[in-house]
């Protein structure tokens, strides 16, 4: 009986996935052509997909129950592993989205919210996360599972909506600063260098050139930061030099520490995987560990060092120039690039296969960034760069589209605040507090600085910062929107990054 229900659940979820992807395309079309009929069609498709997914959830619950009826109905709720939680996140997101569409009587938000659901579904497929029903491990046999997981994901869905609407706000309110020729020239050169190094990892001159470039850029930025810092107390060449040297040293030290931390983490993850042996494979939790010691060759560490400098330089630049426009074009550009890359993975690897025989095998980005053919990889990186640049150049078009949706900026701010005002207390109570109480009941320790718990706290601080920063002078509009976007990236790391990259007591993922 349980296998029939499982089949029904799989089918219903397959239908829901297709409908959600169609809905995403419909909402985007609606935003472009503003045809009311298309808007309503999008809503109908979304609702149908939502009903289908609800049915899938109920069938899966039944299948879970019949696999071990002595556990009872409550303990059989399908919220027990990475697959089920990702799927539930999509369900919660669509539920909250439909509520907002109904409340504000506009399909305008759909083009920005449904892609988050889309990218989640794409990730599930491309990463090869198993959808098998696994019997509950002893640690999860608790009634706390239902409340804690349910509330955490409703909160995450609220945070995801805030992510989308604050991006919309940034698109509407920020303006392009055309004095960015130097930025694009340098960024383009850096990308090109990275591409060359990826193709020729043995070439020492290329590595040296790459490091010289990023360090030179960092020093240039440090000079500007130093000048800004000493502005008040009367500019002075010696002071500038001192500050520049200090900032540069701090950056280099931070890079070394970061590299060591990454190495330590990889070794521990490998040890933990060894100790658990093949047990996790038997449980079918799927997804190979993302890192292993074989990857820790010099060139990988070198790449991480380069990337560290690059990202730090980017952050320094954005903070220095307060370029919100650049920030959103990079975020939206990167997001759509990733979504597109997953689409390529789908076309290349997943079409033509019936059912899901590819559990455990990840094809994520194999058609692009992680392709075994270096030329394809290099082209992918260059294309990503180009896409982001195109968004930067033509971002005003997107702003025009949003304006024609007649969604005033203060409504965007309101929806952002409202979503976070919903998500934050639900997350505090359901995620942090109930999680701590459950840990206390199960292991006798309500807080153990376990990576998952700690990252939840970090996320909590992120949204607390958003709520408090609104009371700071000048922080109401663009600045807090950036906080809402960055805090959601923390959510993604808390949710996925910790499971897939770090080790700990929590049950989901490969650890």
């Amino acid at each position, binding site marked *: 009986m349980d296998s029939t229900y499982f089949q029904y659940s799989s089918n219903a979820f397959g239908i829901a996935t297709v409908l959600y992807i169609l809905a995403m395309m419909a909402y985007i079309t609606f935003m472009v052509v503003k045809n009311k009929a298309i808007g309503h069609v999008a809503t109908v498709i979304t609702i149908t997909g939502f009903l289908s997914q609800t049915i899938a959830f109920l069938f899966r619950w039944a299948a879970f129950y019949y696999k*071990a009826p002595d556990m009872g109905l409550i303990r059989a709720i399908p919220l027990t592993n990475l697959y089920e939680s990702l799927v539930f996140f999509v369900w919660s997101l669509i539920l909250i989205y439909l509520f907002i569409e109904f409340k504000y009587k506009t399909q305008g938000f759909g083009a920005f919210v449904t892609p988050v659901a889309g990218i989640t579904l794409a990730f599930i497929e491309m990463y090869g996360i198993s959808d098998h029903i*696994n*019997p*509950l*491990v*002893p*640690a999860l*046999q*608790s009634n706390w599972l239902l409340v804690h997981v349910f509330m955490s994901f409703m909160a995450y869905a609220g945070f995801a909506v805030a992510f989308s609407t604050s991006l919309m706000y940034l698109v509407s309110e920020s303006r392009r600063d055309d004095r960015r020729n130097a930025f694009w020239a340098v960024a383009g050169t850096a990308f090109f260098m990275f591409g060359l190094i990826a193709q020729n990892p043995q070439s020492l001159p290329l590595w040296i050139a790459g490091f010289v470039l990023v360090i030179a850029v960092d020093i240039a930025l440090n000079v500007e930061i130093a000048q800004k810092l000493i502005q008040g107390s009367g500019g002075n060449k010696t002071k500038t030099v001192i500050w520049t040297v200090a900032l540069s040293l701090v950056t280099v030290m931070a890079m070394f520490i970061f590299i*060591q*931390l*990454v*190495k*330590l*983490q990889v*070794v*521990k993850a490998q040890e933990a995987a*060894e*100790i*658990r*042996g*093949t*047990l996790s494979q*038997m*449980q079918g939790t799927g997804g190979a560990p993302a890192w292993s010691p074989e990857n*820790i060759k010099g060139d990988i560490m070198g790449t991480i060092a380069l990337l560290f400098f690059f990202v730090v330089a980017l952050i320094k630049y954005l903070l220095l120039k307060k370029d919100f426009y650049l920030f959103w074009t990079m975020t939206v550009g990167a997001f759509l690039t990733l979504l597109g890359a997953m689409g390529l993975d789908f076309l290349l690897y997943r079409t033509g296969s019936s059912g899901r025989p590819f559990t455990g095998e990840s094809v994520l980005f194999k058609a692009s960034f992680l392709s075994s053919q270096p030329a394809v990889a290099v082209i992918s990186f260059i294309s990503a760069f180009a896409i982001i640049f195109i968004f930067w150049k033509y971002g005003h078009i997107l702003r025009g589209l949003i304006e024609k949706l007649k969604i005033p900026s203060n409504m965007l701010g309101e929806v952002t605040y409202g979503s976070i*005002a*919903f998500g*934050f*207390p639900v997350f*505090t*109570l359901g995620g942090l*507090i109930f999680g*701590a*109480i459950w840990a*206390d*009941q*199960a*292991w*006798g*320790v*309500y*807080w153990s*600085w376990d*990576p998952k718990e*700690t*990252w939840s*706290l*970090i996320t909590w*601080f*992120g949204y*607390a*910062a958003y709520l*408090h*920063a609104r*009371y*700071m002078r000048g922080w109401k509009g663009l600045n807090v929107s950036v906080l809402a976007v960055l805090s959601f990236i923390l959510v993604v790391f808390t949710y996925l990054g*910790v499971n897939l990259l*770090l080790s700990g007591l929590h049950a989901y993922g490969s650890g």
Partner: protein
Amino acid sequence: MEDNKEKTLVDRVWDLLASVKLAVINFAAIAGTSIVGTIIEQDATREQNLDVLAKFVGDSMAPQAYDFFNALGFMDMYRSWWFIGLLMLFSVNLIICSIDRIPPAWRAAREKMKPLTDEQFTSFPVKRQIIMDGTPEENRGLITTAMRTAGFSKPGGVDVQDGYQLFSSKHGSARLGVYVVHISILIIMIGAVAGVLFGFKGHVSLVEGESTAVAYKRGGYASTQEQQEVANTLLQSGGNVSVAVEQLARKYQRTPESILRRIRDIGIDPLGFVLKCDSSGVDFYPQSFSPKEYWSDLSVLDSRGNPVVRKRIEVNDPLKRNGFTFYQSNHGVQGRALRQDTTGTTFFGPYEPMDHPDFIFEVVPRGGVSPMNVSAKFEQPFEIPGSKATAVVKSYVPTWGGSQQQQYSMSNLVVELEVSDPEQGVYSYMVPQRSKQSPMRDGTRMTVKDIWGVEYTGLSVRRDPGVGLVYLGCMIMAIGLYMTFFMSHRRLWMQASSAGERTTLKIAGTAHKHREAFEHRVEKAIGLLSEGGK
């Protein structure tokens, strides 16, 4: 003049400590450093860390790298001076900002409502004006009902020229919600500190049949001579701490207080009673290696060694006694590797004492139906019921077909017997627990039910006097969150004045949160009035 300057400095410090800006900076700092802490494993021993570091900076560099990280406080980050300093700054910020802001919020929450003047009616965010048939007095009932529909059940009122005014306010306490949340955070932190300072977190591992009167901060069993002596003394005294301490004081010519201190220093916490593991095991899901349940049958023994309490504990279902709580943490099988065969399978025998484990078999003789139990000791011949043969247990494999790591649990137990049959001769026979096996040469079928005495249970032991405060803080935080995010301070005024034979009704209102929801309710109330009045 000097007084003024000092006041300003104190004021400036106070303002800084009360500021939202400091709060946001604190959030960023605690969050940022916590990120680092999740990447490095906290609370590992120096050797464990050196081991890991050596793999990448080499054996010679490892101690230096370790000392570097250690000096920065990264190895036990969450207890380092600077992290605790950050948390203290966070608490001070929280306290001072609340002291600064509670008085005005309190006043605003408790502010008595006053009637509005005519001009004031136009200055509020929510304002309406309608005309009703009938005099103000005739309409009093309807208007009071309208106030109730809008959510205000007992409005106060005054008489004004040509009429009267009704007004009411609700949920003023919503303004204090934020400070309730802040206070709850402080209560939680106090509870956490109490737990760290006065509590105990440790482990104890017990093999089936073993007893203990102590728990260990590290490891779960005695790893030094000193620890062993303390553990044994306490066990012999039946868990009685004062008797054991007296004994040790006399033996080592020291005061009982210094003995107690020494016991704590070497990482032992006396339980005050004796805990025994009668049995422990893992239940698996049918046809699977997935564990369904880790369980341990524990009993608390009195001074004569008789059990006074018995409980089967599982994950999520602990045992509480004497302020301690015992949680099922992990479980394993112990054994001494005897030999390895050509397929790489390792065969184990028990540790000393070798006659401690019982090998429990279930036997169905050839042609028989009902199973019979027989138990045997390691390397001691035993008769197989219903058969002419005798057998000797030679070794066991906890997980047949599994890797080295999987031998820590009995997922697929197989026991190796040397069978001596007068008719069939001497031969080796593997007795399975879960998988199928062909019968013995004389047709007897055997399975092994359990090896009692080779499994050990790892219990997590906790005593936390602060946990009650933490729970209290959580409850208060839940209330505070509700007050902050789901309640709103609302006020509504309605003034009815006569306009000839009819009534002019002016409405004004304000809500400090969820304004549209409030507007919506007011609209609904007014809508009913427009229908009701004629």
